[in-house]
């Protein structure tokens, strides 16, 4: 088996010390895998733990137990127990995360925000900017905005900048947290195309998508998160 992501029996509970130590079980027994070139969509009602699972796979939330196996440079690393430096390396060269919201770096031009993941991985700035421009163009961000920091953009424009930044890399694993949430039909169609291109390149993806139509267009498999609901 050459799964890119192999989650086995992962469990997450929040302990709210400020609320008298209430235990808030989120998920338990989370088990699924994602192969290269496959897009797995997590489904389930709001609050079922979809975003938490995505954050566990990115190493942003810790697991209480279980395993988050990630194929990183040919070997499988358990992200649930990896050292911080290793998690950062995995994020740099293996796992990308596209969230709904752009955490904009102040004062950095849009074109550089988008190009940065490529530059960090060693591509020359002009080449990286060239690819960033092409992607911004596809996502209908007009060229006159490219030199401005995205902090001043509208919510929809910021989301498209974020998508460009997330999709520009050649990372073999992508996590998509509602990438189409506030986009118009034309831009949603571009995201669907981008996902299809990533599949052809062998990228393994896990997505949260609320729009049924988009879900049918991108999902190869659906994993129902309600089966991982932690008994309260």
């Amino acid at each position, binding site marked *: 088996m050459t799964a890119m992501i192999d989650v086995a029996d992962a469990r997450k509970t929040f302990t709210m010390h400020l609320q008298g130590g209430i235990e808030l079980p989120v998920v338990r027994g989370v088990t699924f895998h994602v192969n290269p070139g496959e897009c797995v969509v997590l489904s389930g009602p709001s609050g079922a733990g979809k975003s938490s699972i995505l954050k566990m796979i990115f190493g942003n939330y810790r697991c209480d137990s279980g395993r988050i196996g990630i194929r990183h440079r040919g070997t499988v690393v358990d992200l649930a127990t990896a050292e*911080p*430096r290793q998690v950062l390396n995995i994020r740099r060269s293996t796992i990308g995360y596209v969230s709904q919201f752009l955490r904009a770096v102040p004062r950095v031009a849009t074109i550089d925000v988008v190009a940065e993941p490529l530059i960090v991985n060693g591509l020359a700035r002009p080449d990286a900017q060239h690819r960033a421009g092409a992607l911004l163009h596809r996502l209908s961000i007009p060229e006159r905005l490219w030199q401005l920091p995205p902090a001043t953009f509208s919510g929809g424009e910021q989301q498209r900048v974020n998508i460009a930044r997330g999709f520009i890399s050649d990372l073999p694993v992508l996590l998509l947290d509602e990438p189409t949430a506030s986009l118009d039909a034309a831009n949603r169609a571009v995201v669907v195309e981008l996902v299809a291109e990533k599949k052809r390149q062998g990228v393994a993806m896990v997505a949260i998508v609320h729009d049924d139509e988009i879900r049918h267009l991108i999902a190869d498999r659906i994993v129902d998160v309600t089966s991982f609901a932690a008994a309260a």
Partner: protein
Amino acid sequence: MVDQDLADLDTLGSDQPLLVAQSLSKSFGRIAACRDVSFALYPGEVLAIVGESGSGKSTLLQMLSGQLAPSAGHVSYRMRDGVTRDLTTLGEAERRFLFRTDWGFVHQDPAQGLRMAVSAGANVGERLMAVGWNHYGRIRETASDWLTRVEIDVARIDDAPRTYSGGMRQRLQIARNLVTEPRLVFMDEPTGGLDVSVQARLLDLVRSLVAELHLAVIIVTHDLAVARLLSHRVMVMKGGRVIETGLTDQVLDDPREPYTQLLVSSILPP
């Protein structure tokens, strides 16, 4: 949620730590200011030490930078020649040399890190002269270059920092520290006394310089937003102990300890 990371941790070619703290403790009389702190810092890594006043973070920083002798434990540092030395065994001259060349220290109050009555150019140039530069033209050129890098108008090069605003002073202090291309910089609440808008600009500048120069940084701050923006890893201190440590976004987004949860929940929403 998370900033994709700028730092290039594994192409720095080093799986050897730059600085290692082993079971550091410090007592002042019967008061234990710092208890049993251990960690390793790698080249290019930014570590934030967070906690409230009195948590022991400043005592720890002073021990790490060799300014305060620990009551117990060791700090070792890998010198430029690749040899790892115990800081307590360094002579005063060697320690001073390290401070002038391979280390920087950015104080909360720029007046502590700058000479307020001499020109900005001399403040930066002084560090270069201390490492043997003697060509006036080249020193001035390098100083001008660094003023530009920290966004200070070169026309102000001959003015003394006491004529500068707080934000400019702090940027000048950073230029003075970085001009000798140190590998490790200690920062003690570097944005502490600044207005919020000035803080943002300084943090942004520090963030890009750290990535560009592959600096290792140990930054003490009580401001979790500063830790989030600048650091890879965070150590939370309380009562002289490290109570929680880990990847910065993990500790801040999924804090485990009651005290860390309290700190995180005390941040006002943006």
